[in-house]
Protein backbone atom coordinates (compact mmCIF):
# COMPACT_ATOMS: atom_id res chain seq x y z
CA UNK A 1 0.00 0.00 0.00
CA UNK A 2 1.55 3.33 -0.96
CA UNK A 3 0.56 6.88 -0.13
CA UNK A 4 1.17 10.48 -1.11
CA UNK A 5 0.01 12.80 1.65
CA UNK A 6 0.07 16.51 2.37
CA UNK A 7 -0.29 17.49 6.02
CA UNK A 8 -0.93 21.19 6.57
CA UNK A 9 -1.71 23.59 9.39
CA UNK A 10 -0.10 26.44 11.21
CA UNK A 11 3.15 26.23 13.09
CA UNK A 12 2.73 24.73 16.54
CA UNK A 13 -0.01 22.33 15.46
CA UNK A 14 2.59 19.61 15.04
CA UNK A 15 1.93 18.78 11.41
CA UNK A 16 5.68 18.45 10.73
CA UNK A 17 6.14 15.95 13.54
CA UNK A 18 3.07 14.08 12.38
CA UNK A 19 4.59 13.72 8.94
CA UNK A 20 7.96 12.64 10.25
CA UNK A 21 6.46 9.96 12.45
CA UNK A 22 4.38 8.69 9.55
CA UNK A 23 7.44 8.51 7.28
CA UNK A 24 9.57 6.97 9.99
CA UNK A 25 6.98 4.27 10.57
CA UNK A 26 6.92 3.64 6.83
CA UNK A 27 10.67 3.15 6.89
CA UNK A 28 10.39 0.71 9.77
CA UNK A 29 8.04 -1.33 7.60
CA UNK A 30 10.75 -1.34 4.90
CA UNK A 31 8.96 1.00 2.54
CA UNK A 32 10.60 3.74 0.53
CA UNK A 33 9.70 7.04 2.14
CA UNK A 34 10.37 10.76 1.84
CA UNK A 35 9.36 13.72 3.97
CA UNK A 36 9.54 17.27 2.68
CA UNK A 37 8.56 20.45 4.54
CA UNK A 38 7.30 23.79 3.27
CA UNK A 39 6.82 27.00 5.24
CA UNK A 40 4.81 30.10 4.48
CA UNK A 41 6.39 33.55 4.35
CA UNK A 42 5.32 34.34 7.91
CA UNK A 43 8.11 34.06 10.47
CA UNK A 44 6.29 31.73 12.83
CA UNK A 45 2.67 30.83 13.61
CA UNK A 46 2.21 30.99 9.87
CA UNK A 47 1.10 28.16 7.66
CA UNK A 48 3.36 25.14 7.33
CA UNK A 49 2.94 21.83 5.58
CA UNK A 50 4.83 18.70 4.70
CA UNK A 51 4.59 16.14 1.96
CA UNK A 52 5.03 12.48 2.86
CA UNK A 53 5.48 9.74 0.30
CA UNK A 54 5.36 6.09 1.31
CA UNK A 55 5.92 3.67 -1.53
CA UNK A 56 7.08 0.20 -2.54
CA UNK A 57 9.37 1.57 -5.27
CA UNK A 58 12.10 4.21 -4.82
CA UNK A 59 10.60 7.69 -4.57
CA UNK A 60 11.30 10.14 -7.38
CA UNK A 61 10.00 13.56 -6.54
CA UNK A 62 9.26 14.09 -2.84
CA UNK A 63 7.07 17.02 -3.85
CA UNK A 64 3.43 16.13 -4.31
CA UNK A 65 1.12 17.95 -6.71
CA UNK A 66 -1.89 15.60 -6.35
CA UNK A 67 -2.05 14.03 -2.89
CA UNK A 68 -4.08 10.87 -2.11
CA UNK A 69 -4.57 12.30 1.34
CA UNK A 70 -4.86 15.82 2.68
CA UNK A 71 -4.83 16.74 6.35
CA UNK A 72 -5.91 20.36 6.91
CA UNK A 73 -5.45 21.52 10.49
CA UNK A 74 -6.58 25.11 9.87
CA UNK A 75 -8.73 27.04 7.42
CA UNK A 76 -5.98 28.52 5.18
CA UNK A 77 -4.61 25.01 4.63
CA UNK A 78 -8.01 23.67 3.61
CA UNK A 79 -8.54 26.56 1.24
CA UNK A 80 -5.08 26.23 -0.25
CA UNK A 81 -4.92 22.47 -0.80
CA UNK A 82 -8.48 21.14 -1.15
CA UNK A 83 -8.44 21.58 -4.92
CA UNK A 84 -5.21 19.59 -5.31
CA UNK A 85 -6.45 16.29 -3.84
CA UNK A 86 -6.76 13.34 -6.25
CA UNK A 87 -10.37 12.56 -7.13
CA UNK A 88 -11.52 9.86 -4.76
CA UNK A 89 -8.82 10.85 -2.29
CA UNK A 90 -9.16 11.36 1.44
CA UNK A 91 -9.55 14.72 3.18
CA UNK A 92 -9.35 15.00 6.97
CA UNK A 93 -9.89 18.46 8.41
CA UNK A 94 -9.76 19.84 11.89
CA UNK A 95 -13.38 20.75 12.53
CA UNK A 96 -12.58 22.36 15.90
CA UNK A 97 -10.85 25.23 14.12
CA UNK A 98 -12.39 25.16 10.64
CA UNK A 99 -15.97 26.35 10.65
CA UNK A 100 -16.43 26.13 6.86
CA UNK A 101 -17.13 22.88 5.01
CA UNK A 102 -15.01 21.46 2.18
CA UNK A 103 -16.54 22.09 -1.24
CA UNK A 104 -15.52 18.99 -3.18
CA UNK A 105 -17.89 16.07 -3.30
CA UNK A 106 -15.55 13.66 -5.12
CA UNK A 107 -13.50 13.02 -1.98
CA UNK A 108 -13.85 10.95 1.17
CA UNK A 109 -14.19 13.79 3.65
CA UNK A 110 -13.75 13.41 7.41
CA UNK A 111 -14.39 16.19 9.92
CA UNK A 112 -12.18 15.61 12.95
CA UNK A 113 -12.63 17.83 16.03
CA UNK A 114 -8.93 17.43 16.83
CA UNK A 115 -8.50 20.27 19.36
CA UNK A 116 -11.70 19.33 21.14
CA UNK A 117 -10.77 15.65 21.52
CA UNK A 118 -7.25 16.66 22.52
CA UNK A 119 -8.54 18.98 25.22
CA UNK A 120 -10.83 16.21 26.40
CA UNK A 121 -7.78 13.95 26.64
CA UNK A 122 -6.26 16.63 28.86
CA UNK A 123 -3.50 17.82 26.51
CA UNK A 124 -4.45 20.41 23.93
CA UNK A 125 -1.25 19.71 21.96
CA UNK A 126 -2.05 16.15 20.87
CA UNK A 127 -4.57 17.16 18.22
CA UNK A 128 -2.07 16.05 15.61
CA UNK A 129 -2.02 12.50 17.02
CA UNK A 130 -5.80 12.33 16.95
CA UNK A 131 -5.67 13.04 13.22
CA UNK A 132 -2.75 10.64 12.83
CA UNK A 133 -4.92 7.90 14.32
CA UNK A 134 -7.63 8.64 11.82
CA UNK A 135 -5.12 8.44 8.96
CA UNK A 136 -3.84 5.07 10.09
CA UNK A 137 -7.34 3.70 10.25
CA UNK A 138 -8.37 5.18 6.91
CA UNK A 139 -5.27 4.35 4.89
CA UNK A 140 -3.83 1.32 6.65
CA UNK A 141 -0.51 2.57 5.26
CA UNK A 142 1.38 1.60 8.40
CA UNK A 143 0.48 -0.40 11.48
CA UNK A 144 -0.39 1.21 14.78
CA UNK A 145 2.32 -0.79 16.58
CA UNK A 146 4.93 0.62 14.25
CA UNK A 147 3.78 4.12 15.01
CA UNK A 148 3.81 3.40 18.72
CA UNK A 149 7.40 2.09 18.45
CA UNK A 150 8.26 5.27 16.62
CA UNK A 151 6.71 7.35 19.38
CA UNK A 152 8.88 5.50 21.89
CA UNK A 153 11.93 6.71 19.93
CA UNK A 154 10.60 10.22 19.33
CA UNK A 155 9.68 10.80 22.96
CA UNK A 156 12.60 8.89 24.49
CA UNK A 157 14.05 10.55 27.57
CA UNK A 158 12.42 13.58 29.12
CA UNK A 159 9.27 13.36 27.06
CA UNK A 160 8.59 9.75 28.10
CA UNK A 161 5.57 10.81 30.08
CA UNK A 162 3.89 12.17 26.97
CA UNK A 163 3.61 8.75 25.35
CA UNK A 164 0.41 7.56 27.00
CA UNK A 165 -1.63 10.64 26.10
CA UNK A 166 -0.32 10.51 22.53
CA UNK A 167 -1.25 6.85 22.32
CA UNK A 168 -4.70 7.66 23.66
CA UNK A 169 -5.03 10.36 21.03
CA UNK A 170 -4.06 7.92 18.28
CA UNK A 171 -6.64 5.42 19.43
CA UNK A 172 -9.32 8.10 19.79
CA UNK A 173 -8.62 9.18 16.25
CA UNK A 174 -8.84 5.64 14.92
CA UNK A 175 -12.07 4.98 16.74
CA UNK A 176 -13.55 8.20 15.40
CA UNK A 177 -13.37 7.03 11.79
CA UNK A 178 -13.73 3.29 12.28
CA UNK A 179 -16.07 1.66 9.79
CA UNK A 180 -16.66 5.04 8.11
Amino acid sequence: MSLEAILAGFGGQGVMLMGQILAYAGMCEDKHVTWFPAYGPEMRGGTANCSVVISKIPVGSPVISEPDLLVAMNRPSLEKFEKTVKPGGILCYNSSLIEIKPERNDLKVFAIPANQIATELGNSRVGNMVVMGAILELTQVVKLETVLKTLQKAFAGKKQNLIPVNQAALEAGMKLVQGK
Partner: protein
Amino acid sequence: MERVFGKPAGLQEQEFHYCPGCTHGIIHRLVAESIDELEVRKRTVGIAPVGCSVTAYNYFNCDVQQAAHGRAPAVATGIKRVLPENIVFTYQGDGDLASIGIAEIIHAANRGEKITVIFVNNAVYGMTGGQMAPTTLLGQKTTTSPFGRDAESMGYPIKVVELLNTLTAPVFLARVSVHDPKQIVKAKAAIKKAFSAQVVEKGFALVEVLSTCPTNWGMAPVEAMKWVENQMIPQFPLGILRDFEEVAR
Protein backbone atom coordinates in the same frame (compact mmCIF):
# COMPACT_ATOMS: atom_id res chain seq x y z
CA MET B 1 -14.23 61.21 20.95
CA GLU B 2 -11.09 61.61 18.90
CA ARG B 3 -8.39 59.07 18.31
CA VAL B 4 -5.36 59.83 20.50
CA PHE B 5 -3.40 56.71 19.66
CA GLY B 6 -3.32 54.35 16.71
CA LYS B 7 -1.48 53.39 13.54
CA PRO B 8 0.83 56.21 12.43
CA ALA B 9 0.71 57.41 8.81
CA GLY B 10 4.31 56.26 8.53
CA LEU B 11 3.07 52.66 8.52
CA GLN B 12 1.16 50.97 5.71
CA GLU B 13 -2.08 49.08 6.39
CA GLN B 14 -0.33 45.74 5.89
CA GLU B 15 -0.15 43.54 9.01
CA PHE B 16 3.29 42.54 10.26
CA HIS B 17 4.46 39.00 9.55
CA TYR B 18 6.43 38.99 12.79
CA CYS B 19 5.88 36.36 15.42
CA PRO B 20 3.38 37.02 18.20
CA GLY B 21 4.92 39.37 20.75
CA CYS B 22 7.99 40.18 18.66
CA THR B 23 9.06 43.74 19.47
CA HIS B 24 10.15 44.43 15.88
CA GLY B 25 6.56 45.65 15.57
CA ILE B 26 6.92 48.17 18.38
CA ILE B 27 10.18 49.49 16.93
CA HIS B 28 8.60 49.81 13.48
CA ARG B 29 5.85 51.88 15.01
CA LEU B 30 8.27 54.15 16.87
CA VAL B 31 10.21 54.77 13.66
CA ALA B 32 6.98 55.58 11.82
CA GLU B 33 5.80 57.90 14.58
CA SER B 34 9.12 59.76 14.50
CA ILE B 35 8.89 60.16 10.73
CA ASP B 36 5.35 61.47 11.09
CA GLU B 37 6.15 63.91 13.84
CA LEU B 38 9.17 65.29 12.01
CA GLU B 39 6.99 65.52 8.88
CA VAL B 40 9.64 63.96 6.64
CA ARG B 41 7.79 60.92 5.32
CA LYS B 42 7.68 62.26 1.77
CA ARG B 43 11.44 62.68 1.59
CA THR B 44 12.43 59.61 3.57
CA VAL B 45 14.14 56.57 2.08
CA GLY B 46 14.49 53.52 4.25
CA ILE B 47 16.83 50.57 3.81
CA ALA B 48 15.55 47.13 4.76
CA PRO B 49 18.18 44.64 5.93
CA VAL B 50 18.36 40.90 5.54
CA GLY B 51 16.74 39.53 8.65
CA CYS B 52 13.23 39.17 9.95
CA SER B 53 12.65 42.77 8.96
CA VAL B 54 13.71 42.07 5.36
CA THR B 55 10.17 42.88 4.23
CA ALA B 56 10.10 46.21 6.08
CA TYR B 57 9.17 47.66 2.67
CA ASN B 58 5.74 46.14 3.23
CA TYR B 59 5.33 48.13 6.44
CA PHE B 60 7.06 51.50 6.28
CA ASN B 61 5.03 53.97 4.28
CA CYS B 62 8.01 55.51 2.47
CA ASP B 63 10.35 54.59 -0.37
CA VAL B 64 12.51 51.62 0.60
CA GLN B 65 15.53 49.80 -0.77
CA GLN B 66 16.22 46.25 0.31
CA ALA B 67 19.94 45.77 0.89
CA ALA B 68 22.25 42.76 0.81
CA HIS B 69 22.94 41.18 4.21
CA GLY B 70 24.98 43.59 6.30
CA ARG B 71 25.45 46.18 3.56
CA ALA B 72 22.63 48.57 4.43
CA PRO B 73 25.04 51.30 5.59
CA ALA B 74 26.85 51.18 2.24
CA VAL B 75 23.54 51.32 0.39
CA ALA B 76 22.47 54.22 2.61
CA THR B 77 25.74 55.98 1.79
CA GLY B 78 25.03 55.65 -1.92
CA ILE B 79 21.52 57.01 -1.51
CA LYS B 80 22.41 59.87 0.80
CA ARG B 81 25.28 61.04 -1.40
CA VAL B 82 22.87 61.21 -4.33
CA LEU B 83 20.00 62.71 -2.32
CA PRO B 84 21.56 64.90 0.39
CA GLU B 85 18.17 66.55 1.02
CA ASN B 86 16.49 63.27 1.85
CA ILE B 87 16.19 61.51 5.17
CA VAL B 88 17.88 58.12 4.86
CA PHE B 89 17.69 55.43 7.49
CA THR B 90 18.69 51.81 7.83
CA TYR B 91 16.90 49.26 9.99
CA GLN B 92 19.21 46.38 10.87
CA GLY B 93 19.38 43.37 13.13
CA ASP B 94 22.41 42.33 15.16
CA GLY B 95 23.51 39.64 12.76
CA ASP B 96 23.18 42.06 9.90
CA LEU B 97 24.92 45.00 11.56
CA ALA B 98 27.32 43.51 14.10
CA SER B 99 28.43 40.34 12.35
CA ILE B 100 28.60 40.32 8.56
CA GLY B 101 28.06 44.07 8.35
CA ILE B 102 30.40 45.38 11.03
CA ALA B 103 32.82 46.81 8.46
CA GLU B 104 30.09 48.74 6.69
CA ILE B 105 28.62 50.25 9.85
CA ILE B 106 32.01 51.25 11.28
CA HIS B 107 33.12 52.95 8.08
CA ALA B 108 29.79 54.64 7.43
CA ALA B 109 29.92 55.92 11.01
CA ASN B 110 33.55 56.95 10.61
CA ARG B 111 32.79 58.86 7.42
CA GLY B 112 30.04 60.56 9.35
CA GLU B 113 27.45 59.69 6.73
CA LYS B 114 24.35 61.75 7.49
CA ILE B 115 22.09 58.77 8.02
CA THR B 116 20.05 57.30 10.86
CA VAL B 117 20.60 53.71 11.90
CA ILE B 118 18.05 51.73 13.88
CA PHE B 119 19.93 48.77 15.28
CA VAL B 120 17.68 46.02 16.63
CA ASN B 121 19.57 43.89 19.12
CA ASN B 122 17.66 40.73 19.96
CA ALA B 123 20.73 38.65 20.85
CA VAL B 124 20.05 36.05 18.14
CA TYR B 125 19.60 35.52 14.41
CA GLY B 126 15.83 35.48 14.18
CA MET B 127 15.02 34.87 10.57
CA THR B 128 17.33 31.91 10.11
CA GLY B 129 16.13 30.16 13.23
CA GLY B 130 17.87 31.41 16.32
CA GLN B 131 21.58 31.01 15.70
CA MET B 132 24.17 32.77 17.83
CA ALA B 133 24.66 36.48 17.18
CA PRO B 134 27.65 38.65 18.14
CA THR B 135 25.32 40.05 20.82
CA THR B 136 24.33 36.67 22.26
CA LEU B 137 24.92 36.65 26.01
CA LEU B 138 27.47 34.39 27.64
CA GLY B 139 25.89 31.06 28.45
CA GLN B 140 22.90 31.77 26.24
CA LYS B 141 21.79 28.69 24.33
CA THR B 142 21.13 29.16 20.61
CA THR B 143 20.85 26.73 17.72
CA THR B 144 24.57 27.18 17.00
CA SER B 145 25.64 27.45 20.66
CA PRO B 146 23.60 24.50 21.93
CA PHE B 147 25.61 24.30 25.14
CA GLY B 148 25.48 28.04 25.71
CA ARG B 149 27.82 30.74 24.40
CA ASP B 150 31.27 30.00 25.73
CA ALA B 151 33.65 32.96 25.93
CA GLU B 152 36.72 30.78 25.43
CA SER B 153 35.82 29.73 21.89
CA MET B 154 33.01 32.11 20.88
CA GLY B 155 34.05 35.33 22.51
CA TYR B 156 31.96 37.96 24.21
CA PRO B 157 28.80 39.89 23.35
CA ILE B 158 29.84 42.93 21.32
CA LYS B 159 28.74 46.34 22.57
CA VAL B 160 28.17 48.12 19.30
CA VAL B 161 27.39 51.56 20.71
CA GLU B 162 30.51 51.58 22.87
CA LEU B 163 32.55 50.41 19.87
CA LEU B 164 31.27 53.20 17.64
CA ASN B 165 31.76 55.69 20.44
CA THR B 166 35.53 55.45 19.83
CA LEU B 167 34.98 57.14 16.46
CA THR B 168 35.04 60.92 16.00
CA ALA B 169 32.29 61.46 13.45
CA PRO B 170 29.03 60.14 14.94
CA VAL B 171 26.76 62.82 16.45
CA PHE B 172 24.22 60.65 18.24
CA LEU B 173 24.70 57.24 19.85
CA ALA B 174 22.20 55.68 22.22
CA ARG B 175 20.96 52.35 23.55
CA VAL B 176 17.32 51.95 24.54
CA SER B 177 14.87 49.16 25.28
CA VAL B 178 11.19 48.52 24.56
CA HIS B 179 10.45 46.01 27.32
CA ASP B 180 7.85 48.17 29.05
CA PRO B 181 5.75 51.23 28.26
CA LYS B 182 8.04 53.62 30.14
CA GLN B 183 11.08 52.42 28.22
CA ILE B 184 9.10 52.56 25.00
CA VAL B 185 8.52 56.25 25.56
CA LYS B 186 12.25 56.81 26.11
CA ALA B 187 13.09 54.68 23.08
CA LYS B 188 10.75 56.77 21.00
CA ALA B 189 12.48 59.96 22.13
CA ALA B 190 15.90 58.60 21.19
CA ILE B 191 14.76 57.36 17.81
CA LYS B 192 13.12 60.69 17.04
CA LYS B 193 16.30 62.50 18.06
CA ALA B 194 18.33 60.22 15.79
CA PHE B 195 16.13 61.21 12.86
CA SER B 196 16.21 64.86 13.79
CA ALA B 197 20.02 64.71 13.56
CA GLN B 198 19.47 64.45 9.80
CA VAL B 199 16.81 67.10 9.69
CA VAL B 200 19.27 69.59 11.15
CA GLU B 201 22.00 68.02 8.96
CA LYS B 202 24.22 67.03 11.82
CA GLY B 203 25.54 63.64 10.88
CA PHE B 204 25.62 59.95 11.70
CA ALA B 205 23.15 58.80 14.34
CA LEU B 206 22.56 55.29 15.66
CA VAL B 207 20.11 53.93 18.20
CA GLU B 208 20.56 50.39 19.48
CA VAL B 209 17.20 48.99 20.58
CA LEU B 210 17.11 45.94 22.83
CA SER B 211 14.42 43.73 21.37
CA THR B 212 12.87 40.31 21.90
CA CYS B 213 12.77 37.12 19.87
CA PRO B 214 10.24 35.07 21.84
CA THR B 215 10.22 32.37 19.18
CA ASN B 216 13.92 31.64 19.18
CA TRP B 217 14.39 32.38 22.84
CA GLY B 218 11.68 29.79 23.46
CA MET B 219 9.82 32.13 25.78
CA ALA B 220 6.35 33.57 26.01
CA PRO B 221 6.35 37.24 24.92
CA VAL B 222 5.77 38.54 28.45
CA GLU B 223 8.57 36.36 29.77
CA ALA B 224 10.81 37.59 26.95
CA MET B 225 10.25 41.18 28.07
CA LYS B 226 11.40 40.23 31.55
CA TRP B 227 14.48 38.59 30.06
CA VAL B 228 15.42 41.79 28.30
CA GLU B 229 15.10 43.66 31.56
CA ASN B 230 16.91 41.16 33.77
CA GLN B 231 19.47 39.59 31.43
CA MET B 232 20.17 41.91 28.53
CA ILE B 233 20.22 45.34 30.15
CA PRO B 234 22.93 44.43 32.67
CA GLN B 235 25.09 43.43 29.70
CA PHE B 236 23.96 46.26 27.43
CA PRO B 237 23.48 49.31 29.69
CA LEU B 238 20.91 51.79 28.45
CA GLY B 239 21.70 55.43 27.87
CA ILE B 240 22.68 58.16 25.46
CA LEU B 241 26.45 57.95 24.92
CA ARG B 242 26.69 60.84 22.49
CA ASP B 243 24.32 63.68 21.71
CA PHE B 244 24.91 66.52 19.28
CA GLU B 245 22.86 68.86 21.44
CA GLU B 246 24.95 68.13 24.52
CA VAL B 247 28.03 68.86 22.43
CA ALA B 248 26.41 72.00 21.14
CA ARG B 249 25.78 73.35 24.62
